[in-house]
């Protein structure tokens, strides 16, 4: 029998807490201070972030080999239940804080140039600070409730940043969409919290995990045995709630990490400034979902994991398709992000815990890099704008041949693309290979229909290569299409390479996408990452647990190893080749691309409109809810409230009441009393005909009636 209070009792002082508070405090400081110091906000907050990054990296290195630290305390008490908070620093957390801080810092730097001309700079940097703060919160806290809180805060900051240019209607709408989609996910996650709390009456993850070990399935019920302050507790729920808990928590991830069916917000989120897209919608926030899944991984039972895997695969495939035909450079990257997140989620689903996280890290680098490069291009092209020259600088149809004018950007973009496509020698290859390996093994074990799942995964490998190189070819090779569109020759010469403040972050990220960083090795599991961050073991009761990961990693992987790698590489290369033949410099498509219309043909349309998911939601759900609201309002005003108007009318004419009464029966009681009071009033009055004899007669009759009543 395990004692709850031992698990959540406050730990005594640990110097680590100072580091943590510092880590959280600095971004918060940058948020608040930036609002007040108007002028130097950018440089000031960038500096703060630099400091924070320094601390983070220092911590990462100094505590890496130590064993994980956990610090607990009491937040508030609810009845006799203690709502504790707890920090937890393991390697994953260290890695994440370093990653978040680093990318956040780079984005800060990038933004200093990118947002130079915006008069709302302070607000922008304040938001960035707030975002970093809440993101670190998710990473550092090891308590589902507090994670949920920062989780929502992250969503809130992303709302603010997407809607940063709120004068643009599209921006504000996109912001709403993002927040509400996240809210839907969060509602699900909240349900998960309810279930776990009802069972374990604590949110502390360590405690929950410990208690989960001691919970078991007794004739279909999921029972948790433990003692609380000495007295024994036996919380019991229907067994299905166990799977429900896992799926509910996953809902949160679905919202944040833009998984099917809630992923629609991410492409719209590109309305925000490009650096924001790089930071939030590529590297960190959207990865939070995966991080959460990793944290609660051991609490998910077989069913939940299956759902996770399938959803991930579907997302990866759908988004990859969608990315094929977009014209907006950021949209392409957005869909690619969704697709890659799909990979990670699927990885968690198939039990490839460490592989998924590995991909999270690598992806953070190359995707952020891609976004920053895109940012540079957009920024530079924007400079061409003048009174007679107007064009959409995000539309790849106007680009082309930029490699000559901005070679550095091109190089970075290329490296990151290769990483994304998963070609050997680049980080993407390692992580993706690991995932595919595990996935295949998983399918091997489960067999049957599960091959479709990994089929989707493999399909999206090739698709990825196609769409990313389409981008590379169309943007950087051949001639500058804008010239021919506006027929202004020599416009090309006006295009300049971005300055260093823009380039340095991009370069750094590009460097981070080369596989050397993770160890000069073609085998994923030999990288330091996979060495250090290893798969945990399941804690859920046996009968609900998924197959153990040990045999997964050991037995099958060995056998599969060689050819999974070969297949994935060849698929990636194949994709490259295909897109080369489609968009290569001298291909027809590439030439006439400038006036390429929206794609026709079923597949094309599906791809371009992202499977018409948005349309569906717009038409079906949103409309439905709004109409329902209107209907209810009508009901409320007209019917439920009808009686009062009835009251008003009774003063005027009786007839009205009768009509009203017949018309609005639903409103029942009150209306009834009022109208009938009117009726009775009239009736009783009508005796007062004024003729005394009628008085006498009626009086007598009534008297006799009363008498009869008595007799009967």
């Amino acid at each position, binding site marked *: 029998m395990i004692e709850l209070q031992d698990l959540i009792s406050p730990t005594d002082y640990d110097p680590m807490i100072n580091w943590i508070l510092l880590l959280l405090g600095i971004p918060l400081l940058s948020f608040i201070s930036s609002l007040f110091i108007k002028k130097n906000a950018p440089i000031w907050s960038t500096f703060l972030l630099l400091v924070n990054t320094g601390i983070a990296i220092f911590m990462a290195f100094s505590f890496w080999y130590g064993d994980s630290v956990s610090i607990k305390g009491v937040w*508030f008490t609810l*009845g006799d239940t203690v*709502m504790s908070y707890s920090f937890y620093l393991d390697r994953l957390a260290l890695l994440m804080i370093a990653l978040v801080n680093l990318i956040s810092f780079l984005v800060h730097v990038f933004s200093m140039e990118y947002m130079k001309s915006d008069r709302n700079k302070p607000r922008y940097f304040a938001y960035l600070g707030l975002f970093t703060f809440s993101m670190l919160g998710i990473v550092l806290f090891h308590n589902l409730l507090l994670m949920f809180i920062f989780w929502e805060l992250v969503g809130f900051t992303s709302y603010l940043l997407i809607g940063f240019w*709120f004068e643009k209607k599209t921006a*504000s709408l996109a*912001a709403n969409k993002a*927040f509400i989609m996240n*809210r839907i996910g969060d509602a699900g996650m909240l349900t998960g919290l*309810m279930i776990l709390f009802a069972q374990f009456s604590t949110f502390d993850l360590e405690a929950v995990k410990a208690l989960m070990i001691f919970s078991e399935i007794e004739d279909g019920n999921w029972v948790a045995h433990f003692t609380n302050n000495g007295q024994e507790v036996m919380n019991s729920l229907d067994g299905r709630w166990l799977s429900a808990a896992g799926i509910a928590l996953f809902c949160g991830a679905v919202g944040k990490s833009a998984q099917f069916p809630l992923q629609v917000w991410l492409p719209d989120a590109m309305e925000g400034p490009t650096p924001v897209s790089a930071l939030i919608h590529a590297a960190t926030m959207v990865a939070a979902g995966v991080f959460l899944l990793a944290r609660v991984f051991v609490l998910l039972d077989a069913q939940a994991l299956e759902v996770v895997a399938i959803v991930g695969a579907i997302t990866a495939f759908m988004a990859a398709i969608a990315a094929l035909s977009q014209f907006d450079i950021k949209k392409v990257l957005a869909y690619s992000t969704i697709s890659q997140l799909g990979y990670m989620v699927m990885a968690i689903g198939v039990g490839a815990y460490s592989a998924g996280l590995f991909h999270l890290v690598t992806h953070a680098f190359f995707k952020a890099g891609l976004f920053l490069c895109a940012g540079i291009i957009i920024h530079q092209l924007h400079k061409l704008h003048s009174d007679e020259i107007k064009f959409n600088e995000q539309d790849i149809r106007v680009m082309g041949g930029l490699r000559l004018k901005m070679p550095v950007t091109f190089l970075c973009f290329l490296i990151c693309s290769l990483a994304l496509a998963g070609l050997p020698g680049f980080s993407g290859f390692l992580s993706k290979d690991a995932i595919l390996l595990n996935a295949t093994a998983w399918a091997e074990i489960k067999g049957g229909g599960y091959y479709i799942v990994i089929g989707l995964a493999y399909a999206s490998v090739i698709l990825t290569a196609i769409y990313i190189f389409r981008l590379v070819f169309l943007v950087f090779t051949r001639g500058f299409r804008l010239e021919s569109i506006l027929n202004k020759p020599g416009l090309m010469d006006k295009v300049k390479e971005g300055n260093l403040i823009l380039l340095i972050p991009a370069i750094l990220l590009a460097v981070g996408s080369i596989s050397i960083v993770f160890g000069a090795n073609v085998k994923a599991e030999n990288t330091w990452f996979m060495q250090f961050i290893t798969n945990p073991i399941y804690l859920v009761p046996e009968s609900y647990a998924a197959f153990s990961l040990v045999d997964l990693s050991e037995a099958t992987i060995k056998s599969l190893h060689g050819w999974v790698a070969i297949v994935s590489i060849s698929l990636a290369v194949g994709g490259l080749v295909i897109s080369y033949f489609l968009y290569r410099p001298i291909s027809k498509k590439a030439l006439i691309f400038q006036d390429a219309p929206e794609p026709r043909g079923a597949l094309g349309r599906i791809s371009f409109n992202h499977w018409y998911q948005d349309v569906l939601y717009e038409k079906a759900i949103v409309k439905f809810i*709004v109409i329902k609201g209107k209907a209810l309002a009508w009901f409320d005003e007209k019917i439920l409230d009808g009686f009062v108007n009835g009251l008003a009318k009774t003063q005027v004419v009786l007839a009205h009441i009768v009509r009203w009464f017949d018309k609005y029966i639903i409103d029942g009681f009150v209306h009834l009393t009022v109208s009938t009071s009117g009726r009775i009033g009239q009736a009783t009055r009508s005796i007062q005909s004024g003729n005394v004899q009628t008085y006498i007669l009626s009086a007598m009759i009534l008297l006799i009636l009363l008498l009869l009543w008595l007799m009967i």
Partner: protein
Amino acid sequence: MIQGILSYIIFLPLIAAAVVLCLPKRLESSYRIVTVVATGLTLLLTIIAVYSFDGGIAENINSEENLQLLEKSEWFSLDLGSLGSFSVDYFLAVDGISIPMLLLASIVLFIGAISSWNIRQKKKGYFALYLLLSGSVLGCFVALDFFLFYLFFEFMLLPMYFLIGIWGGPRKEYAAIKFFIYTLIGSILILIVMIGLYNSVYDPVRTGAEIGVTSIEQVQTMVQSGEVAREDIIKSFNMIYMADQANYIPGSLLSQMSGGEIIGKSARWIAFLALLIGFAIKLPSFPFHTWLPDAHVEAPTPISVVLAGILLKIGGYGLIRTAFSFFPDSAFHYSWMIGFFGVFSILYGALNALAQKDIKKLIAYSSVSHMGFVLLGLAAMTVEGISGAIYQMFSHGLITSMLFLIAGVLYDRTQDRLIENYGGLANRLPRFTIVVGIAFFASLGLPGFSGFIAELMVFLGAFKSSAVIGAIPQWMPVVATIGLILGAGYYLWTLQRMFMGKYWVKKAEWTERLKDLNSREYLMLVPLAVLVFWFGIFPDTLMSLINSSVEGFTDLLNQAIR
């Protein structure tokens, strides 16, 4: 000083009202000062009271040892000859359930007084009535004698009626009458139960004195075994006694043992339902809510602030204090229904809010939705649920006051409340927009604001309920989460339509009238915002007060159910 502080809290506004009435007309400008000072002092006293309050002691809710700042003196006692007699006490005290409400009330009243600053017409009447209202509202939360409680409860109606009816908007008369009639129906139901109750409950202490027995337990056993003569039994309006089933006269209709019946149904069930409806009208819960939108839309800003900020809470407080305490068994019997109405109100209110054009109506319906959480929490009958209900009342009081003040700010400038008549206000009123943002996000339950904590507790409690005492099924809280999504929906939509996008207003002349917040408005809004933050981040400041009482309360419920 501490002793009798509650009396000061109640009577200060009343005295101030008298002062206002006495001041000559040429000192008109001083009325508002008097009002603000009086309410300010009340707030000060309340804070002192809260400081002196010790959250630690309250094992079982139904004995007077757990009350603090207790003031009890016989008010009057009527001797009904051989049928015994009944006594009405002037009985004020606070426990963990009433202290947050008291605090909330005096905060909101103070804010309301400030926002009454620019009342133009018939100042004397207005401020006098406002102070009367304040007195009775505060009294409602500290009175523990049913008679006294009912006095305050009823007495609130009149000032409210005139405040809405004279200083209100275009359809004020209609709204005022509607408000009055609706609430009166409720309070008649309460009165019926009250008569039934005091005829079934006796005062063990006085009865003991009558028959010369000191220990309460002994008196109770003697009465239950019928050793005490009818004329020695002293009936009582004391709510604390009413909450102890041993204080019910054997054979009396509402006594649990005798199980009296009215037309075939258990009398206790019927009494409970009567109380439930009576307070559900005040709360208001579907389908008794239709007075609320009109009352809010027509009432002047300060009055809607008080109405939404405090008066609604009396509904919830009354349910806890009376219905649930006196008839726990019936409460359990009807918990499913209560929970259902809670969930229904949550969704119903939210969907209605989604369709409103008038921002005040929108806020009103959001109140309906939020009060649904109170019902849900109460129905759960778990510690988390009930704490959540109380917390929700408290935080909603602060947040909704903020929202109505915001609506007032806009209305003061343009005399127009229609959402569609504004656009992109953020460009012109950045600071106002920030405040609005805070209020809206607080209201839609963003973590870091008090609303989130409250709703979280309710959810946890409601989900646990079925496992712990089997009150309401798990699907209720799960369905209720949809309310969160809808909440986000209508608030963000409003925000987007009114504040985002290009600046645009219906009438050109509004533009120069649309100035950003002035210092007085800051004075009202900033403290509220700060409080909302504070209670979102440090729940313990409130929980430490209410915890033990709530535990006592739930113990009471559980004993009754077993």
